[in-house]
């Protein structure tokens, strides 16, 4: 019965709230949408990964070569295993390096994986994107037809049905393969960067003398116990390969997907927090409008707890509406995120609605609303019933302020509990809540002090010496700031702001009055006004930083890469063709050439200990790192004065005598535990591709860290192509059979791309890469990062708009009587609106300018330490952002203020 009246009161209050109710529900909805969408996408990833894990592993056990391909001889191991019945079937994938030529002529390095269509894939099938002209097996069986992994497809931009030129190492000539299809999700483990053809297609393109080696072997077993036994045996036998059972693959997938879930949850939580701030704001307005009503309820005997119940019910209903709406949109969002992740993660992710998450989302919406509504509800329930007698301002005593702090604490704790539940980690949630709280508190403090200053700015009737002096001083200081290169934009903003000091004096008197009132008003309810500034600050900061970092990093990276001082084109080819390539490069106008040799080699022992023994005790990731750092050797013409361009961290640089003693440099990364390598140690290497190669023991004479072409600018472009650096003689001794020449060529930047294209056609068997081609990959990465950050930034801006709308509404509500009086004494509607808009512009401008200052402050150390790029805020961008933010704020304020400023004075002043 009581519930009946309560419900009716609540629903009608919500209905009467109109736009404001929609706004509050919208705030909740945005948060719930983000949570539901992101969590559900993460759960789809999770279940898709676990559902397809055997298929993704390529079989019950996958063997993936990390750095050294498996020679053909190793296949015997698998044949024996099969004939002994311990494995049922296996399939081996041949690996071949290639450069794929984009339509524009740039090359993309890719691995060609040649498979046997009769056995590959061992389990399941390779799902293709719509548009393919057949199944994977059908397509791959056609001569000259390839299937691209989605990673390669996105780098290449090739369409199904188009012909693509592929430069294969040791090929007879360039080959043209047709794109038959594009893998929808992942190819089996180890084949993510591949373009897949059949063995027959590959054989038709390369010389019959070409080496045959394998990148991956997949196998199936009868039981999972067999699988782990076989996996253990293979791990011992092939110490440098990554051997994974389905179970192991599952575990690493789970780890990856739980990180993803956590990341997405944090993003969702941020949206929820922003929504929460919107709720506080909106509920405050809607309850403040009912101050008298609340006082009235109290005079008829309602206690605080009755009111908590009544308004709590309102919050619950608001949360329900927002939660249900948000969850519904969130379902749609999850499909979009799913598609995005499918593209990024190369996994087939199937759409599935998880009703648990949807329900939890609605619950989270209700909980968030209640938690944040607590602030306005408790505050407004304190309205003294005497307010019905006299519309006295709420007395703010120390007691009220003190309990507000307690209340904030309670809200923080409740939100922390909610965050812990969502993230599944109380510690992480605590860090997030405290971090956000402290940051917001500091910002609010700073801005409320700045507002106090603005509130006291002089608006003199005519030029006075003191005023002119003050403004001139401000202008001069601003000009001084512009001389600091990275603060130029900030200085420019300050100059403009200071010049307003002159302008205000020459304004006509009524306009001056408006400005004066606006400035004084901005100082009232400073904390709330500061919230507006903070909201815009965050929005401008995020958007600005993204735009600046995005454009600056991209262009600087591009220029570093293209103007790299030592080389901008790299070519790898067998000895005899390398000489021809060098000739061709000179003909194309190369300005410097460095010729070294490189070969595939693999370690058999370290300090005399067999590699399988060394590797036995290592973790999965240490094992692959060791494999990377000890497989492959690059030879420098030390005798003729060519030394590796590296920094020696320990020991010494190479010298001519190392040719006879096999002295080498290894990466300083090997000095860390558990590898613990130092100068004086030995590594024994072998040529894995030569049938009867003899091991060669190398003396470590030094440990290097790879300095890089762009090192002065902090960007690492490694100038070494193999991890072990040796003399040319040593490299030839270790792996003479597969020795290739590496040419590092420098062309005038503008001509590097064209030169690379011409070198490719001069020798299709050579792998030629222009460094500019890397920009493709970097661009792709940056685009994704920028997209994500922009999404977060727009949430911040959205919150800013909601907060502005609410605080303008609240301020007008509080000043209703005052506005009535102003109008009664003859001020026009325009003047009142002008005051509100001027005030909003000042407050917004303060926040936006603060955002720019913060960007400058962030860029300053970043510039020195991390990126070492000359990052500056372009002044036009700074102006555009600040002006844009002010415009958004003013338009929002105008929309909100339009109705209230037209209030008839009589309406307001009738009582008392």
């Amino acid at each position, binding site marked *: *019965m*009581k519930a009946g*009246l*309560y419900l*009716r*009161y609540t629903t*009608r*209050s919500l*209905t*009467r709230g109109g736009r404001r109710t929609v706004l509050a529900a919208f705030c909740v909805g945005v948060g719930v949408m983000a949570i539901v969408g992101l969590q559900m996408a993460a759960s789809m990833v999770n279940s898709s990964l676990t559902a397809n894990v055997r298929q993704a592993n390529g079989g019950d056990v996958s063997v993936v070569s990390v750095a050294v391909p498996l020679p053909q001889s190793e296949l015997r191991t698998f044949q024996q295993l099969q004939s002994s019945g311990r494995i049922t079937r296996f399939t081996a994938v041949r690996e071949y390096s290639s450069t794929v030529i984009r339509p524009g002529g740039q090359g993309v390095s890719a691995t060609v994986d040649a498979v046997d269509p009769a056995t590959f894939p061992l389990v399941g099938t390779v799902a293709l994107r719509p548009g393919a002209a057949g199944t994977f097996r059908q397509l791959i069986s056609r001569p000259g037809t390839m299937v691209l992994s989605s990673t390669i497809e996105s780098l290449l931009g090739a369409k199904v049905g188009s012909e693509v030129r592929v430069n294969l190492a040791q090929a007879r000539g360039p080959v043209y393969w047709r794109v038959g299809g594009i893998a929808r999700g992942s190819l089996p483990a180890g084949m993510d960067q591949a373009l897949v053809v059949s063995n027959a297609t590959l054989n038709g393109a390369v010389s019959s003398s070409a080496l045959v080696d394998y990148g991956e072997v997949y196998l199936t077993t009868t039981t999972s116990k067999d699988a782990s036994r076989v996996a253990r045996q293979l791990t011992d036998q092939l110490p440098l390969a990554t051997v994974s059972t389905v179970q192991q693959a599952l575990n690493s997938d789970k780890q990856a997907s739980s990180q993803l879930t956590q990341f997405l949850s944090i993003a969702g939580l941020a949206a929820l927090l922003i929504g929460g701030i919107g709720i506080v704001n909106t509920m405050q307005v809607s309850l403040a409008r009912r101050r*008298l*009503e609340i*006082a*009235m*309820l*109290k*005079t*008829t*005997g*309602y*206690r*605080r707890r*009755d009111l908590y119940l009544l308004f709590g019910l309102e919050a619950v209903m608001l949360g329900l509406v927002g939660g249900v709406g948000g969850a519904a949109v969130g379902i749609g969002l999850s499909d979009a995120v799913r598609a995005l992740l499918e593209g990024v993660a190369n996994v087939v992710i199937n759409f599935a609605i998880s009703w648990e998450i949807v329900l939890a989302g609605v619950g989270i919406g209700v909980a968030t609303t209640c938690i944040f509504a607590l602030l306005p509800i408790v505050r407004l329930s304190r309205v*003294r*019933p*005497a307010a*019905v*007698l*006299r519309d006295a301002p709420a007395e703010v005593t120390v007691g009220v302020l003190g309990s507000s702090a307690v209340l904030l604490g309670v809200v923080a704790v409740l939100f922390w509990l909610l965050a812990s539940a969502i993230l599944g980690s109380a510690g992480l949630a605590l860090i997030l809540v405290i971090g956000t709280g402290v940051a917001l508190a500091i910002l609010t403090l700073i801005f409320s002090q700045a507002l106090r200053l603005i509130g006291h700015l002089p608006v003199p009737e005519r030029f006075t010496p003191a005023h002119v002096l003050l403004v001139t001083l401000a202008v001069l200081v601003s000009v001084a700031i512009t001389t600091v290169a990275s603060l130029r934009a900030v200085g420019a903003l300050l100059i403009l702001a200071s010049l307003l000091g002159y302008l205000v004096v020459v304004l006509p008197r009524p306009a001056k009055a408006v400005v004066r009132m606006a400035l004084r008003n901005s100082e009232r309810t400073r904390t709330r006004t500061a919230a507006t500034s903070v909201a815009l600050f965050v929005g401008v900061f995020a958007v600005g930083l993204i735009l600046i970092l995005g454009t600056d990093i991209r262009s600087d990276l591009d220029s570093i890469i293209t103007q790299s001082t030592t080389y901008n084109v790299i070519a790898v080819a067998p000895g005899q063709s390398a000489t021809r390539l060098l000739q061709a490069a000179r003909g194309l106008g190369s300005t410097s050439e460095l010729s070294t040799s490189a070969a595939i080699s693999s370690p058999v022992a370290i300090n005399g200990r067999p590699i399988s023994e060394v590797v036995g005790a290592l973790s999965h990731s240490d094992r692959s790192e060791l494999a990377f750092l000890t497989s492959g050797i690059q030879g420098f013409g030390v005798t003729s004065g060519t030394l590796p361009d590296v920094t020696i961290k320990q020991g010494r640089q190479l010298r001519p005598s190392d040719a006879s003693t096999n002295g080498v440099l290894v990466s300083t990364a090997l000095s860390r535990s558990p590898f613990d390598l130092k100068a004086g140690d030995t590594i024994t290497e072998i040529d894995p591709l030569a049938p009867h190669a003899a091991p060669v023991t190398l003396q470590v004479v030094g440990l290097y860290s790879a300095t890089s072409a762009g090192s002065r600018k902090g960007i690492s472009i490694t100038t070494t192509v193999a991890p072990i650096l040796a003399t040319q003689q040593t490299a030839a001794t270790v792996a003479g059979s597969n020795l290739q020449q590496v040419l590092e060529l420098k062309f005038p930047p503008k001509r590097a791309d064209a030169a690379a294209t011409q070198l490719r056609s001069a020798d299709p068997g050579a792998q030629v890469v222009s460094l500019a081609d890397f920009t493709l990959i970097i661009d792709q990465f940056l685009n994704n990062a920028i997209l994500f950050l922009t999404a977060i930034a727009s949430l911040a801006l959205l919150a800013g708009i909601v907060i502005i709308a609410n605080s303008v509404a609240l301020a007008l509500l509080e000043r209703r009587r005052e506005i009535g009086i102003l109008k009664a004494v003859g001020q026009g509607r325009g003047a009142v609106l002008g005051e509100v808009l001027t005030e909003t512009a000042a407050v917004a401008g303060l926040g936006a300018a603060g955002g720019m200052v913060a960007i400058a402050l962030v860029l300053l150390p970043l510039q020195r330490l991390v990126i070492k790029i000359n990052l500056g805020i372009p002044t036009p961008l700074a102006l555009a952002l600040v002006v844009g933010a002010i415009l958004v704020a003013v338009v929002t304020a105008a929309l909100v203020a339009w109705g209230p400023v037209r209030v008839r004075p009589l309406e307001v002043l*009738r*009582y008392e």
Partner: protein
Amino acid sequence: MSDFAPASSPLRADGSAPAVGEVPVLEVRHLGRSLRLGSEELAILQDITFSIPPGEFVTLMGPSGSGKSTLLGCITGLDNPSQGQVLLNGVDVSRMRESQLAGIRNRTVGMVFQAFNLIPTLTARENVEVPLYAGRWRGSPSSRATELLGLVGLSHRLEHRPNQLSGGEQQRVAIARALATEPPLVVADEPTGNLAAAQGKEILELLWDLRQRMGTTFVIATHDSTIAGYATRMLQISDGRLVGDHPGPRAGAR
């Protein structure tokens, strides 16, 4: 309907304590209210003492700004007196906590204001039900509300919202709401201040009529001397002091 028999006790012009055994509905002893404005202490009410036995129809007269609203605020526990005591039905409410006061207000005092203060989202009937839900009303709030609205002559406007009612009608709803929980005392602050003279007169007739039927004690603050014509007792306040306490024109009327 009402448990209260109309009071028939003789009226005391001097405001002295009532006869033994009879508890006054309202007793105010040496009431003072001051406000701190900056460094100054502003005395709004000073040393006010009077006592009202059940069934009186009291007008509280005084010029605007004399302290009438402040006094009513202290009486009803909306405001805390600085000195002195207020006893409602013999219970001292001047130092009570807010949560206790809420119960007292619900059961003992009904309030009517110049600005009606109806809840705009609720219908007339629902507005009258509001206090019934705050306390523990034994019967059906809805039929009680209907009955009271009938009593104030609004049987035909039960489901109308405040903005669909005239000022006089809104004030009738407010009166019905004040009487909903059968409080022995109803306090009204300038109940006719927002109304045209004719409507104001109707409202006063209604209040008088209700006093006759239900025996409720009324204290009505006003600066309108025509209202004084209905009083069984007249309190006069000026500059925060009680300057007069006389029998009214209708003293002794039943």
